């Protein structure tokens, strides 16, 4: 084993190998995780974590599965945060500024403190994407927020009570459905399939033996 460091899990001290992440350190200490653990790879946002290094003022925010332990780390996890998720029908809403006003009016209460950006575990410019949402610029809001894992730390820091991840979710769906250009080739292909254009080719394959398909497969042309 390499050197150990002292970490304080919910205030209680444990000596753990220094190469562990906060998540594996908790397990090393004997926790059997149920909450606060999902994909273990930085995509699901289940393991939002707040820590402070002993002797420092600054609070830090991270995903427990993506962060290595440090000496003197005081750790609290945030396995759940009460985000506001508004109900809407994606078929009926339109990508207009009014949508945001109706569903998430609190975005206009942003006081510009930037606590959301400072706390983002994905290092996104959260306040900026909220500004885009305020203006009804959903495309930019979607781009700026794209890597969001919806861990909720930003919202836990927000004095205006904004549920940033849900605002961004709405913006991305509006962008994906209404603002991004349509894919004509996709529509065309669906029509071709429905009209049975490929049916003969497919039935031909379905009726072939694996050996016969092997021949086709091993000699197929590969697009460069």
């Amino acid at each position, binding site marked *: 084993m390499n050197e150990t460091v002292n970490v304080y899990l919910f205030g209680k001290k444990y000596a753990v*190998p220094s*190469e562990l*992440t906060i998540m*594996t350190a908790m*397990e*090393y200490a*004997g*926790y*059997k*995780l*149920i909450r606060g*653990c*999902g*994909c*273990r*790879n*930085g*995509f*699901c946002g*289940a393991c939002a974590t707040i820590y402070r290094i002993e002797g420092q003022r600054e609070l830090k925010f991270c995903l427990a599965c*993506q962060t*290595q332990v440090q000496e003197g780390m005081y750790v609290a996890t945030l396995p759940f945060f009460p985000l506001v*998720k508004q*109900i*809407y*029908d*994606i078929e009926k809403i339109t990508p207009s500024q009014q949508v945001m006003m109706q569903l998430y009016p609190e975005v206009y209460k942003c006081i510009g403190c930037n606590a959301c950006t400072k706390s983002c575990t*994905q*290092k996104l410019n959260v306040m900026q994407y909220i500004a885009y949402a305020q203006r009804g610029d959903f495309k930019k809001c*979607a781009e700026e927020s*794209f*890597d969001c*894992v919806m861990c909720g730390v930003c919202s836990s820091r927000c004095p205006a009570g904004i549920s940033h991840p849900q605002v961004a*979710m709405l913006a*991305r*769906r509006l*962008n*994906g*459905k209404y603002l*991004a*250009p349509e*894919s*004509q*080739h*996709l529509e065309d*292909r*669906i029509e071709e*399939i429905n009209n049975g254009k*490929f049916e003969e*080719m*497919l039935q031909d*394959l379905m009726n072939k033996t*694996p050996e016969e*398909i*092997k021949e086709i*497969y*091993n000699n*197929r042309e*590969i*697009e460069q």
Partner: protein
Amino acid sequence: MYTEEMKKSMAKVDENRENNTSYEPPRMTAEEKEALLAEYHPDYKKEEFSVLLTGENKGEKVPKELAALLLGKSRINADFDLSSPDYDVDVLVIGGGGAGASAAIEAHNTGASVMIVTKLRIGDANTMMAEGGIQAADKPNDSPAVHFTDAYGGGHFAAKKELLYKLVTEAPEAVKWLNDLGVEFDKREDGTMITTHGGGTSRKRMHAAKDYTGAEIMRTLRDEVLNRQIPVVDFTAAVELILDEEGKAAGAVLLNMETNALLTARAKTVVLATGGAGRLHYQGFPTSNHYGATADGLVLAYRAGAKLLYPDTLQYHPTGAAYPEQIFGALVTEKVRSLGAKLVNADGEVFIHPLETRDVSAASIIRECTKRGKGVKTVDGVGVWLDTPMIEKKNGEGTIEKRIPAMMRMFGEYGIDIRKEPILVYPTLHYQNGGVDINTQCETKVKNLYAAGEVVGGIHGRNRLMGNSLLDVIVFGRNAGRNAGKRAKETTAGKLTLKHIEEFEREAEKNGALSDIQSPMLLPDYAGKNK
């Protein structure tokens, strides 16, 4: 971040980069691939499998770890009181990943009352972690028939053809459905989908949302489930399926993961969408899977009388992170190779075409690190280089940040800039190729029990191509939900029973096969362990 020894090897990779970038390594012949797999692929290690002595697959081999669970002891007694169900719905969806969410949405469309139960949260699933993309033959030079051929060949000609037919013919419609729900696919200005190759594809049909494709799909599906106000009972695992006296699926016994309370859910139809098994760590491999990937659905279905297909075939993704150890086993998306990065050994030599299928690529890395002795030593073992700087040499600066930001972030946390330095990789347990046997209606051998997603076997044969799993969770998830919803209108559940559990255990005991562990596993046990 890299050790001195690694840096020495890396210098050779740097030195050869110019030549390696333009070098097009030959593709292996069918015979070469077969020989390579037989010698190095983990599926071919006979001693790692055991033969099932009870159940529908009696006489067939499965990984030892899975056998112990399939023939494990139930978590409940067969005399568990089912007389006053806590939940009563038309369609019970077990699992909150891509397949479960798709099924719930489509079942809801039929007018059925639907409920999702999931042992963690909705979205804590392998779908969320699928990085690379989703296949659909929607370009003019491509067709569902070519897609069929690629997948059938890549799966060693073992797929159930009728399932594969469904997969490829409904693929464009699946992508459109997602797009219409608001999933942000990578497109050009004119709306053309940006598509790339995956290992084993003969046309560029990999659609993506950067390298967050699965996350983008999953969060959108989750949002849609919530908008429809479909009840999601989270932190609640299904621990047994309930049948009625005619042997039809009629619900599940649930376990509240936090309070350990046992609950009864009665349903007219059940959709099993519990996902894969990476957390069983077959053969000691690390895994790219989410925390709950413990094969629960296979256990539940098997005890209820379902049949499994190809449960002996697993996918080891060739490029799991081998270093740094904090991310050991984490997925490095195949898209890295789609974009032009090649696999390079300790001496700086390219040893395989970057777009061979996953099983072949994985076996070639294992060969490089064992017999050929050309691996690079890491803390936990050994690895080979994946030369990421090639991507920007080939496609220009900025490509990595734009197309694979999650990879850049994951390694960036540990001081590795993948734009400038290559990374170390080794195969990681990634996907359960086999699973519950279904027909084209997603019906299992147990009446009124439907299955979709990774828990299913047979769609891909004995190896799956990149981008066909996100596709299958959508195509078959939707079909399962639709069919289960319709069926719920025509069926009635009789008296609920768990007699099948008792009978299965008795049979297993008689055959000397009952293992002494409780199953399903629900979560892996990492408490008190270093890894």
